[in-house]
């Protein structure tokens, strides 16, 4: 065994292994670093490569399809015909065209030669003339003039080409050369013009052929597709960036979302299921918001600059404040710029959120800038009134002082100055009076406009069954699942205390006793007068009707009949008027004190004690339907029978009269903010108890109190605004979980009973309620007619006009969706469609109509225009400001300018009047069959408005369009189309015409429009008598009836 050598630490231990290892690691990590640099942190490169290949494949496919489609169009007989015609037209002129072309070519050759020669000669002449001009002496000038003349007389030799290909030698003096050159040029122009004329029809046909191809090929043309394909294949792999300078926006979203703006509509399925490559789902919206101007993140949120990963780009990261909106909340992005829009196209979820915020009474506790703030304005108006009164008083005192000083003044001049000063002050004071009047009117209007979400609780003693009150307060959703009243977390003793306070605090009065009516008739009236546009009947799946107002299935259990009758007759009627100045309800004694009858309504709305504007209406949006007392009682009788159990089946609530509960109840009412939605005596001026939500979406997350759920939320991934709102809305008490709190310290927000869709809508609205990060000019604050539209929507939605009327294209009214109105006969009973109403209605008339829809001071039990409709246009008692907004809204929606200057309507000549009368009474044009005439018997079967309303109501342009094709304006209308046919430039009546029309060359539709818009009651009577005469004496029928009434 050889001796083991000593271990040499230098030679015996090779480092090669570790070095190799380290080297390999180093090399590998270099590769890794390089890979990461070029691909790992640039995932979009892979996206782009994938997009290019998938999109190219898709384009190839489409190209094949489109080529085939184009081929089909080209092979169609129509196309072939035009093609043939084009070819024939071209061939017909071909010999002439080629002759012209030949001649032009010859001319061109000669012109070239002549031009050269002429330009040389002209150069020489021009140079010499310049010499003449600059020569210093007359002699020198003379010399140059002679030279000019010499040059002009010199013969210029040219070799002119001739058509046979050879040349001929010609010589010209300067003037001859010029005129020959001009002559040839003119000839050429003439020939070219001739050529254009010859080819005119062929060119027209070719254009027609190309248009035909374009019109009949659905989708992109193969040529366009080939262009896109080429572009896609050649596209370099690089960051795609939008830079919006003024907003300092850098958006790289399209580095991955490559299909967003492609002209070819791409679906995820087209791209193998990759949604990232799909086109923007709403092209119309994208066209309105060009990404080059708006970027992506102002609408969608996310981090436009980040490209390293999907998570970073989408900003779904703890430290990024604006994470990409989830699909269900995507419309939150609209709110940033569209705060002032209550109804916004393409944003139905957001619209719903805003609607819920107002309708469900969130607004009762939470202020939101721009939402129904009449209360706040009223306070400021009252302050202004006070200031004006002070200023006026000061002016008067100052004026008095000035006069006294004037009397004592030392000089006349000084006296005059002081007197003048006093006079100025008084004139100024009188101007202040005018301002005061306006403000007072305004405060009266504001009092009219203030509405509350819930009913007045001052009236409960006259309105409600006492036993029902605690049942309702304990759990409103149990009693009426669809109610907007939220459920408060109340203990039994709290319920009792609140009930007792409200009961004892309410007005005590005796309402007139009402006899019962006919419930069967009442049901019919309820279903046909229009009640169901807002109210529903039946529960669960059987629910029929609108959701704007209460479901009335069990209303008979809670209300007193007498109160119900008063309410239906005029919901705005109060038992006592309220004086905001004295802050109390007035009693008959207040009126008696001043010797006045206890009368208060919109015409008697000043306080007898101090002259301030009174609240004389219930603050409900429910309008008056102008029903007769009989109709009212019938409906009330029907409603009072709507019950599951008798009113007496509720347990007696003796504690209502327990005075000891009063104070506890009062403090609970204050604590829970009941006055946010209800009118309660003593709480009229109470502020909102909740937090303001205008900017809730940009509140720092740390300030949203997740309480003990913070860790759970972080774990489950909902520690963000969306998660907070969703959980809070589903169960407002959720953040009290596990907390040790006294009852009065617990979260007060009641449970709103929202469906999941509603929670999404409200969450969307709240997420969008942010401090805008986009520059001012992005935000939608128009000051033209679009502003009128914005403002109008707030009023239209406040009173639920869409319950009865269609206002937006594609959005049916509530009535249109109800089972009753699916029947063809009932469909004709639908209130008018208001799309395009601004083009139809004279705005001045509309303002009058909105103020008084009966169009009569005495006969209120009717519709003013469509007397034949069962559904009644109610009286809303709009304030003048609201009427103004509505009128402007409808005019703006139809792009009508304001103020309206009615176009002059050409008076009818005698001949024209005769013709129009003949047409109107002709059996072929039975206008007066369907249109109401004011005669009761006839109007029973009428289903169109009285012509007598037309002159003040209708605009002529619309009336003409209506006559020509009514179905285009209002689909499904009873008015038939095809009454007129086009004959050359004019429209003529399509039926058999009276012989007198043979000599009339005017437009028949225009004639009728002019006649209708100038019709008078006397004229209508004349028409009716003629119609009566036209009937044979044995069967006078209708016409005789009509006559009797006139």
């Amino acid at each position, binding site marked *: 065994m050889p001796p083991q050598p000593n271990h040499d630490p230098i030679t015996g231990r090779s480092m090669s292994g570790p070095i190799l290892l380290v080297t*390999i690691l180093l090399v590998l990590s270099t590769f890794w670093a390089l890979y990461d640099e070029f691909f790992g942190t640039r995932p979009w490169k892979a996206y782009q490569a994938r997009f290019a290949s998938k999109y190219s494949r898709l384009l190839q496919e489409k190209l094949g399809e489109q080529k085939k489609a184009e081929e089909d169009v080209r092979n169609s007989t129509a196309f072939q015909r035009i093609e043939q015609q084009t070819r024939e037209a071209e061939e017909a002129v071909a010999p002439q065209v080629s002759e012209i072309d030949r001649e032009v070519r010859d001319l061109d050759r000669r012109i070239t030669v002549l031009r050269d020669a002429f330009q040389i000669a002209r150069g020489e002449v021009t140079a010499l003339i310049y010499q003449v001009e600059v020569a210093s002496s007359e002699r020198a000038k003379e010399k140059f003039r002679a030279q000019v003349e010499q040059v002009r007389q010199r013969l210029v030799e040219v070799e002119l080409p001739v058509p046979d290909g050879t040349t001929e030698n010609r010589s010209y003096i300067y003037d001859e050369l010029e005129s020959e050159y001009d002559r040839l040029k003119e000839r050429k122009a003439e020939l070219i013009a001739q050529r254009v004329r010859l080819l005119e029809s062929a060119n027209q046909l070719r254009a027609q052929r190309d248009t035909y191809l374009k019109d009949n090929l659905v989708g992109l043309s193969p040529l366009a597709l080939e262009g896109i394909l080429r572009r896609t294949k050649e596209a370099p792999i690089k960051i795609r960036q939008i830079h919006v300078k003024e907003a300092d926006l850098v958006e790289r979203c399209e580095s991955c979302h490559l299909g967003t703006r492609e002209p070819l509509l791409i679906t995820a399925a087209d791209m*193998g299921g990759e949604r990232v490559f799909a086109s923007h789902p709403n092209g119309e919206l994208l066209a309105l918001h060009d990404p080059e101007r708006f970027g992506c993140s102002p609408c969608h949120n996310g981090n436009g600059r980040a490209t390293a990963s999907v998570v970073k780009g989408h900003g779904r990261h703890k430290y990024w404040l604006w994470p990409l909106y989830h699909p269900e909340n995507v419309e939150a992005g609209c709110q940033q710029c569209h705060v002032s829009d209550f109804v916004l196209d393409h944003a139905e979820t957001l619209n719903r959120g805003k609607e819920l915020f107002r309708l469900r009474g969130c607004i009762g506790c939470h202020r939101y800038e721009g939402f129904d703030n009449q209360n706040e304005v009223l306070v400021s108006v009252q302050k202004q009134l006070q200031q004006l009164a002070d200023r006026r008083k000061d002016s008067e005192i100052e004026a008095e002082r000035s006069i006294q000083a004037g009397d004592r003044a030392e000089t006349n001049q000084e006296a005059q100055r002081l007197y003048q000063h006093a006079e100025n002050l008084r004139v100024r004071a009188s101007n202040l009076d005018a301002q005061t009047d306006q403000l007072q009117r305004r405060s009266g209007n504001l009092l009219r406009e203030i509405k509350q979400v819930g009913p007045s609780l001052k009236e409960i003693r006259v309105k409600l069954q006492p036993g029902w009150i605690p049942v309702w307060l304990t759990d409103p959703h149990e009693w009426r699942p669809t109610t907007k009243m939220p459920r408060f977390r109340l203990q039994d003793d709290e319920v009792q205390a609140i009930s007792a306070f409200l009961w004892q605090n309410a007005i005590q009065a005796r309402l007139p006793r009402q006899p019962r009516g006919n419930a069967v008739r009442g049901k019919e009236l309820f279903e046909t007068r229009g009640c169901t546009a807002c109210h529903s009947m039946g529960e669960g799946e059987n629910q029929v009707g609108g959701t704007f107002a209460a479901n009335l299935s069990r209303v008979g259990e809670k209300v007193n009949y007498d109160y119900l009758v008063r309410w239906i007759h005029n919901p705005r009627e109060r038992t006592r008027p309220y004086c905001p100045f004295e802050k109390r309800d007035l009693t008959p004694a207040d009126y008696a004190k001043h010797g006045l009858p206890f009368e208060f309504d919109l015409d008697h709305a000043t306080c007898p004690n101090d002259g301030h504007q009174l609240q004389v209406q219930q603050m409900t949006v429910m309008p008056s339907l102008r029903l007769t007392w009989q109709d009212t009682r019938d409906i009330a009788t029907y409603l009072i029978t709507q019950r599951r159990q008798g009113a007496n089946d509720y347990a007696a609530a003796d504690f209502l009269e327990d005075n000891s509960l009063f104070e506890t109840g009062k403090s609970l009412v204050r604590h829970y903010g009941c006055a946010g939605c209800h009118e309660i005596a003593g709480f009229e001026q109470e502020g909102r108890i909740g937090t303001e939500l205008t900017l809730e979406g940009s509140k720092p997350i740390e300030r949203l109190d997740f309480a003990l759920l913070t860790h759970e939320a972080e774990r489950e991934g909902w520690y963000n605004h969306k998660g907070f709102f969703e959980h809070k809305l589903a169960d407002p008490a959720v953040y009290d979980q596990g907390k040790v709190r006294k009852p009065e310290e617990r979260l007060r927000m009641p449970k709103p009973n929202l469906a999941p869709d509603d929670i999404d809508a409200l969450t969307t609205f709240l997420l969008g309620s942010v401090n805008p990060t986009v520059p001012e000019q992005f935000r939608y604050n128009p000051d033209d007619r679009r502003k009128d539209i914005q403002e109008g929507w707030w009023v239209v939605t406040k009173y639920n006009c869409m319950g009865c009327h269609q206002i937006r294209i594609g959005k049916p009214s509530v009535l249109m969706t109800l089972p009753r109105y699916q029947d*063809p006969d009932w469909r*004709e009973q639908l209130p008018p469609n208001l799309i395009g109403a601004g083009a139809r209605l004279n705005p001045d008339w509309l303002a009058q109509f909105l103020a008084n829809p009966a169009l009569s001071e005495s006969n209120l039990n009717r519709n003013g225009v469509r007397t034949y409709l069962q559904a009644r246009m109610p009286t809303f008692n709009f304030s003048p400001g609201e009427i103004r907004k509505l009128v402007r809204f409808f005019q703006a929606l139809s792009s009508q300018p304001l103020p309206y200057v009615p176009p002059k309507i050409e008076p009818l000549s005698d001949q024209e009047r005769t013709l129009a009368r003949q047409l109107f009474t002709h059996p072929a044009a*039975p206008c007066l069959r369907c249109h109401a005439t004011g005669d009761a018997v006839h109007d029973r079967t009428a289903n169109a408005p009285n012509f007598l309303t037309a002159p003040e109501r209708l605009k002529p342009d619309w009336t003409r369009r209506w006559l020509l094709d009514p179905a285009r304006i209002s689909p499904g209308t*009873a*008015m*038939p189309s095809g009454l007129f046919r086009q004959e050359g430039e004019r429209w003529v009546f399509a039926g058999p015409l009276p012989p007198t029309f043979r000599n009339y060359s005017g437009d028949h539709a225009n004639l009728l429009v002019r006649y209708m818009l100038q019709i008078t009651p006397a004229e209508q009577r004349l028409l009716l008598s003629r119609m009566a005469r036209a009937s*044979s004496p044995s069967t006078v029928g209708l016409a005789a009836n009509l006559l009797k009434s006139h």
Partner: protein
Amino acid sequence: MNLRNIAAFASLFLLLLVIGCGSAEQPAEETAATEAAPAAEPIDPATAATISGKVSFEGTAPRRRRIRMDAEVACAQMHSGPVYSENFVLNDNGTLRNAFVYVKSGLEGRSFPTPPDAVVLDQKGCMYTPHVVGAMVGQTVRVLNSDQTTHNVHPVPKNNREWNRSQAPGANAIEATFARDEIMIPVKCNVHPWMKSYIGVLKHPYFAVTGEDGTFEIGNLPPGDYTLGVWHESLGSSEMQISVAAQESKTVDFVLEKAG
């Protein structure tokens, strides 16, 4: 030993790298199988079956509604006696007139040629004749006006396109087609609110309207299982399952009751 480990490690690393590089996954191609519609088989007259029967009524007949057309002199003159609404016409033998009987299902997948001749709907004496009529999808419906007054013809369909055209006395017939099947399309005249007619539009020719004897017959029907439907303006709809063998002549009766 160490080196081998390292090498193994390194190759694993490289392998991962390679996998990483090629990670652009290819999603599976979608295989969208388009179901081809079964081709239309021609009806073999040798095997064709016939269904016939009657539609009768049970219960107390409602009172007939009198139509007052005094207002329309031209029409009133065309009737000698009183005119009654045709919404409920009970024949003397207790059967119903104007019931629409049709094959509701069982013919899916077959296609039938559109008949070249038009279905005629006349307006005579301010009444539609016939009151109930059937047509095939795409078949021309020709509406005539035999009255000396202007009508408007206003079908109010749910699934088809609605139109409303005025038709003066002596004007050309209005010709229309309906593109989709629908039971039933009400047709009305807004000038004369009592005028009403119903058109049943089907994809096949297997329908019939009961007449004065309340019977119907649907022939040339390929053997098979069908749902036979009946529709009546005032009494609503009803249906029954039926199967017919080749060349079979089957008799089925419908009994409609007053609703409610």
